[in-house]
């Protein structure tokens, strides 16, 4: 599960180097800042990854937990809004790339 939404995470081209049998948890939703990533922004991030890996290998997730420690002061509503947009982004990606179930 790799965070990739922040600039400090480097270039997504690195994903190409991961062994083929590994699925990638693509960190495509920010967890630190109050701006709510739109579904379109999330789709764009995933599409950058799709330049390097096949759709079947990707799971969408936020960069990190929203509150690794209990006193992390991120509003719950913010997390909920981000998760809703993550799900909408996934729906959009299925429309774009076909919704055949992934091999499990």
């Amino acid at each position: 599960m790799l965070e990739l939404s922040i600039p400090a995470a480097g270039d997504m081209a690195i994903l190409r180097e991961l062994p083929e049998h590994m699925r990638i948890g693509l960190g495509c939703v920010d967890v630190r800042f109050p701006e709510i990533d739109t579904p379109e922004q999330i789709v764009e991030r995933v599409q950058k990854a799709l330049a390097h890996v096949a759709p079947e290998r990707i799971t969408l997730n936020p960069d990190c937990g929203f509150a690794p420690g209990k006193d992390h002061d991120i509003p719950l509503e913010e997390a909920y809004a981000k998760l809703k947009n993550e799900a909408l982004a996934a729906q959009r990606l299925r429309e774009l790339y076909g919704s055949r179930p992934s091999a499990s």
Partner: protein
Amino acid sequence: MTNSLPLFSTTVIGSMPRPQYVKDLLRAGSRTGEHDALWQRRTDDAVRFVIGMQERAGIDIISDGEWRRESYVDVIGEIMTGFRWVQRDQFPYHQVVVERMQPRRPGVVAEEARFLRENTDRHVKVCLPSPYLVGQRMWEPAYSQGVYTTRDEFCEALVPVLRAELLAIRDVGVDVIQLDEPHLCVLVDPKVRATFADPEAEMRKAVDWINQIISGVRGVTLAVHLCRRNWGRRGWGAAGGYEAILSHIQ
């Protein structure tokens, strides 16, 4: 088990923000040990809430928000005894190992997992900290050297504990178990690497201990979470691409 996942399945990393009510429940529970029936019901109901929230948001693989935990690292202190809060400058929000670990509630995380499994039809995931991470946060020379002479010795003692817990979680029937290892990731940062005599050796240790925990484990999807520290609004603690980790991945 549950239905197969769609293309572009969605998940969370694990922790969800805790409302003040949940923080108050945690304070009452773990510090005073007041796990009475009413506390239990309230905590269970709170976890049902965060399960429902993730389902309603449309997430495919959900967690329990880690709402039974004060921290994703200190959960080791629920499984084993030997940890205490001390005054220190670095990592003041983690306990420190001060006695040889003894079993406290082995299987406690598997019980968290069981509740999650029984309260949703979605795919579920459960997280555990990695030995290297726990060693970085919870071994402090001034307090720990007397019981585990080196940090590495402490990490090695954690391996069988975490493996046993992982197997118990697997046996509950969860879909994904994630090992959290941000330190493997912060070791990509040149500034962080400069603070270690042999950063490659540090990465090897982190990876080896994870491999020892998961070796031969079947019947569950295993994941490793890497990030550069999550300091909320203050941003992140390290920077760098994943290149340095690549040579350690099998």
